[in-house]
Each structure stands twice: as structure tokens, then as C-alpha cells.
């Protein structure tokens, strides 16, 4: 299909599921309960409505995801987004990349860091960004590839233990999110799909 996007971008995209989303008006009480965490003032996305086919896992996942990505203290929002972006690049979740690369750029104002992640040229980055992206990439690809050398680089770049924990959690939770969003749907150009996420 010609509107499918296959290349990494930080520009907004939409997402089209391969499975039929739950229809809100027909949702069971358990599905409605699991959907409650989604703010009522925003339209519930097709992504969340696909996950609502299994309300038990959705109900557990939403608060954990929000706590990891938006909880106060520890690693900055921007650097959590950088870890999320690096993991999403490894897993080629084009839609996830567009969202989280875009958030990183709006928070950190450093599009060149995202460009390096897209190109695999993170060796050119400063020590802190290089340590974050390198660890995130290896942990996302295959956990045993992350090593004590990554820990040394993160600590040498000034990350506290709490910041390293938050980075680990953000990369891990995108190992989760990428395995839902990419296998269950595809990234498409936005604007012409009234039902897209």
C-alpha cells in the first residue's frame, strides 16, 4: 500500500492496525475498565482499542508504561525519550520512532542526536548521549550484548544510579511497546485516514 512508511522520521505519522479495533459502544465492562486510564478528553486511539481485545493485560500495562515514561524525578523526560527512540530504531517500529524522536527533539532541541541514531553514527555524539544510545541499542537488540563497559560509560558520563535505572526501564518498556505496535500494525502518512491513531 502506497501510504505505508518504511523509513525513520521524526515527523508525525499515523498507525493502521492489522486487527479490527474494539468498538467502544460494544465494549464489555472489563474492556471499559481497562480503557479508563486513557484520558477522557482525548480520542481513544486504534492502538489502545486493539489492545482492549485483552483487557487484563491492557489494564496492567497502561499505568506501568505511564509511570516509567512520565514519573517524576530521575532521568529527564528527554533522555527517557532518547532511550525509547534508540530501542524503537533497533526494532524498526517506524510509528514509535516518529512519536518518540519527535518528543525528544521538542524537549531537547537537538535534532542532530536523532539524526545520529537514525544513521547509526552515535560514535560522533558527546559522551553522555553516546553512552545512553549505545547501552539502549545493545539492551534493546539482545540483552546479553549490554555489558559492564556500558555501565562504566554511563557512570563516567555522569548518570546517577537512579538515572541508569530509569533508562533501563524506558528501554525495556519499549522492548514491550515495539513488540505490540510494529507487529500489530503499520505506520502510514497522516491526515487522510479518519480512523487512524
Amino acid at each position: 500500500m502506497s501510504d505505508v512508511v518504511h523509513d525513520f522520521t521524526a515527523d508525525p505519522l499515523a498507525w493502521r492496525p492489522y486487527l479490527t479495533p474494539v468498538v467502544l459502544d460494544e465494549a464489555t465492562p472489563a474492556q471499559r475498565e481497562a480503557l479508563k486510564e486513557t484520558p477522557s478528553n482525548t480520542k481513544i486511539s486504534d492502538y489502545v482499542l486493539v489492545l482492549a481485545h485483552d483487557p487484563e493485560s491492557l489494564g496492567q500495562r497502561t499505568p506501568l508504561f505511564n509511570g516509567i515514561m512520565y514519573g517524576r524525578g530521575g532521568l529527564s523526560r528527554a533522555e527517557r525519550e532518547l532511550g525509547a527512540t534508540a530501542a524503537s530504531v533497533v526494532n524498526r517500529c517506524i510509528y514509535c520512532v516518529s512519536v518518540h524522536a519527535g518528543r525528544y527533539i521538542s524537549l531537547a532541541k537537538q535534532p542532530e542526536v536523532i539524526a545520529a541514531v537514525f544513521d547509526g553514527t552515535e560514535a560522533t555524539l558527546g559522551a553522555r548521549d553516546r553512552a545512553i544510545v549505545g547501552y539502549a541499542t545493545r539492551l534493546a537488540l539482545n540483552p546479553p550484548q549490554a555489558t559492564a563497559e556500558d555501565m562504566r560509560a554511563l557512570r563516567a558520563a555522569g548518570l546517577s544510579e537512579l538515572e541508569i535505572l530509569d533508562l533501563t526501564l524506558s528501554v525495556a518498556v519499549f522492548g514491550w511497546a515495539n513488540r505490540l505496535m510494529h507487529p500489530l500494525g503499520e505506520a502510514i502518512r497522516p491526515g487522510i485516514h479518519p480512523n487512524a491513531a
Partner: protein
Amino acid sequence: MAAILRHVDLIAATPREATRADIAALQAAGVATGDIVRLSQLIAFVSFQLRLIAGLRLMGAAP
């Protein structure tokens, strides 16, 4: 069962390779929509756990 095992291996190890055809293969094997979502959540949650545990082990190891 073969279709489910194949899908678990694919999504656990190389999710970047997943395409629309992989979901269609589960549907063709008779896996219901709710079960496809449950299976996907299970694979994805274990992938989360493995990365969290690996990171915690590295953090806890002697510097």
C-alpha cells in the same frame, strides 16, 4: 501450534522482521483476535522482563 511457536520466535528475537503476513498467518491458523493480542502481550512482556533483569544485573555487578 506451529504457527504460534513460529510467531513467538519471530517477535521475541527479531520483531523488526514482522509484517502484516505474520498476523495473517496466525488468523489462517485459526487464532482468534483476542488470542493474537494476548499472545503479543505475553511475548512483549517477557521481552520487557528480560531487559529489565539484564540491566539490573549489570547495575548490581561490581563496577
